[in-house]
């Protein structure tokens, strides 16, 4: 039993090396990571452990997409690793290591678990790119009332309130004035009578029509 497993492992790694030395098969997906762009100072170094994590995450993605099929790290073959941190990978099928899982299946698996794969590496859709698998764009949050209508409502409410106030106030003031002059005239007469008794403090009504006279003629 152990012997068989050992043999299979050797075979698969030999097979993997074989695969890498050939041309890129059509089922392969090209992956590109931009760790420093995403994380800046907190960027981790890409090494074999990280690659192992990648293979494990992808195996997890395949497992969650095709339930029951137990994909393993050895099923994820990675080739052509560059200093850019880019490489391509293929997924070998469970029954036959020489057969590769189709592109469509791999794509479905990656799409389904894309979020989990991204967060395993602290990256985003733009910094962990699977060339050929376009990220599903998040549906925009569409509030029930467009926010601009709310602002519009507030502004217009204030304007209409202002219009009402400015139109109604003078009418109220006019009504008050109409009531007041009736009382003013009575008090005026009394005071007039008083001043007539006390002496001429006001002699008649000040006639305004000649107030500008100085400007026209100089006598």
């Amino acid at each position, binding site marked *: 039993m152990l012997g068989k497993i050992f043999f299979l492992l050797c075979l698969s790694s030999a097979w993997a090396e074989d695969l890498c030395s050939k041309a890129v098969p059509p089922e392969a997906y090209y992956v590109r990571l931009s760790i420093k762009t995403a994380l800046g100072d907190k960027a981790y170094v890409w090494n074999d452990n990280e690659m192992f994590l990648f293979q494990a995450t992808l195996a997890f993605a395949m497992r969650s997409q095709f339930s029951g099929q137990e994909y393993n790290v050895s099923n994820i073959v990675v080739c052509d690793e560059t200093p*850019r941190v880019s490489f391509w990978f293929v997924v070998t099928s469970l029954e036959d290591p020489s057969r590769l899982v189709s592109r469509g299946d791999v794509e479905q698996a990656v799409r389904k678990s894309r979020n989990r794969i991204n967060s395993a590496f602290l990256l985003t859709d733009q910094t962990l790119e699977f060339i050929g698998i376009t990220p599903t*764009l998040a549906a*925009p949050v569409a509030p029930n009332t467009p*926010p*601009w209508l709310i602002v519009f409502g507030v502004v*217009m409410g204030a304007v*209409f309130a202002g219009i009402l106030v*400015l139109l109604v106030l003078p009418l109220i003031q006019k009504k008050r004035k109409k009531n007041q002059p009736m009382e003013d005239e009575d008090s005026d007469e009394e005071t007039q009578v008083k001043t007539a008794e006390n002496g001429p403090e006001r002699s008649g009504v000040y006639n305004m029509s000649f107030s500008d006279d100085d400007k026209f*003629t100089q006598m």
Partner: protein
Amino acid sequence: MGKTEDSGVQERPKWDNKAQYLLTCIGFAVGIGNVWRFPYLCQIYGGGAFLIPYLIALVFQGIPLLYLELAIGQRLRLGSIGVWNSISPLLGGVGIASMIVSFLVCIFYNTIMAWVLWYFFHSFQNPLPWSQCPINESLTGYDVECEKSTPVNYFWYRETLNITPDIAVSGSLQWWMVVCLASAWCVVFICFIKGIESMGKAVYVTATFPYLVLTIFLVRALTLPGATDGLLYLFTPDWNILMEPRVWLDAATQIFFSLSLAFGGLIAFSSYNPETNNCERDAVVVGVVNSATSLYASISVFSILGFKATTAFNTCRTENILALTNHFHISDQNITLENYDTWFEYLNTTYTEEVAGLQLRVCDLQRFLDQSASGTGLAFIAFTEAVLEMPGSQVWAVLFFVMLFSLGLSSMFGNLEGVLTPIKDLKLLPKWIPLEVVTGSWVTCLISFLISLIFTLGSGNYWVEVFNGYVGSVPLLIIAFFEIIGVIYVHGIKNFSEDIYFMTGSRPNIYWKACWMVISPLMLLVVFVAYVIVQAQDHPTYPAWDPSYELFPETEVRPYPDWVFAIIILLSSVPVLPIPLVALYRLICRRRTSSARAEPNPYSNDGFEIETQEQYNQRSEKV
């Protein structure tokens, strides 16, 4: 004083204080054009060198005309129609022409206010709606039209205007624009509800707020990277440009339109002044403040445009870096903005064909700085793009659009006043209607709103450009020319000097007289002729936003169809027609009824003649 009495004699409204009057005039003169037209002209006409023709035009044409309008309005205390009727009945048409032009400008100007309001309402969101493209239905990509152009362009042309590809295609009324237009007119109405009493108070805010915002923007912009590049670019003078006649023409027209002359609004404002107001100082103050504001605004605007150009330059280079990094499998972030040039040299020399195959964009800071924009392109595209890059975008967007709104609102006051005061003075409306209704402001606002619904159609933006280019240009030059001829030659320079002596206590000096009698009319005539020649040289065209155009996102330059051309001719000539028509009409009337002379001057009662200084001297000598 200043309020109406129930007994019936309505006193002419007055300003509460001098500051209100000055702020209103400054607010009228300082408008959106100071922010979005002057910096553009400075940029395309050699930066600092443009200031020379600009200042010359200001000194010899702008300020004298301004003084003339303020003085005549203050002396005769009537709106534009009344003033010209008083000077000579044959010139009555000048006032009517001013009123028509003011009305037409009101209509399209408030549409711009509606656009500003729309953007203002949308600035309260995070993220700003013009920062991202909307996603298409299948959620796999962005809207095609937005992809090809930019999100900012898309938001302006599609989500705001919903523009049609051609001016002949009218489209339908865009309900959101109608709503914004209605709100803009409501805001104007509330400021006008009590005539200049309410307007005078509103102007404390609308005239001063833009300066505050410009200062804030200036301080913020100067701290952004690339601001100094923008400023250097703006002010580096290119002296050769002064040889081109177009520079002088554009400087003269810019001064003229910037000061809002010949609209009748300034005459109306100064007619509410007490008669002894020093209008000479007012004219100089308003003229100088207007030009200073233009300069100040262009510093702010260009700092921000410099920042925008630098950001675009960096984005361009970052894209190239990414392309190189991906292709040559170089480690991430090995190529940075700083060492980009050395890396590029190395890669280009070693792997020339591969680099050529990558088709990298050519990133040149000068080219980004050269992208000039004026008018709506500056405010709604360039500036909104710049605001996206600034931290705290919503705040800057809100501030900017409130500033534009107050600038436009204070100019709208003048435009509307140029329509309302003549109506009031002509006593077209009966007296039994109360004040708030008889000022006619709500009637004018309602009629203007209904007419300006044209601009809320799909092709509305094209029509605004038509109005902007042809209503607010040639007719104003003609009206101003007749104004100056009317006052100086028909009314007489002696009478006018006496009027000014009566008002301010000193006669106008040789500078004013020389300008009024010779220099300004000559300049106006030259500018008018040159302007007409330049316009007539080629068939007018307009830039159309057509997604099916092959060079899409660039705008396609199309000629106006013939019927639009006919409308353009109408717009330029109809406002000016009253001048000859009224003159003819009055001449005919005068010949028919020889007994009834021209309308008496309300200030000339034969019983009391205004003595001139000479008559007084003669009389005192006799005594």
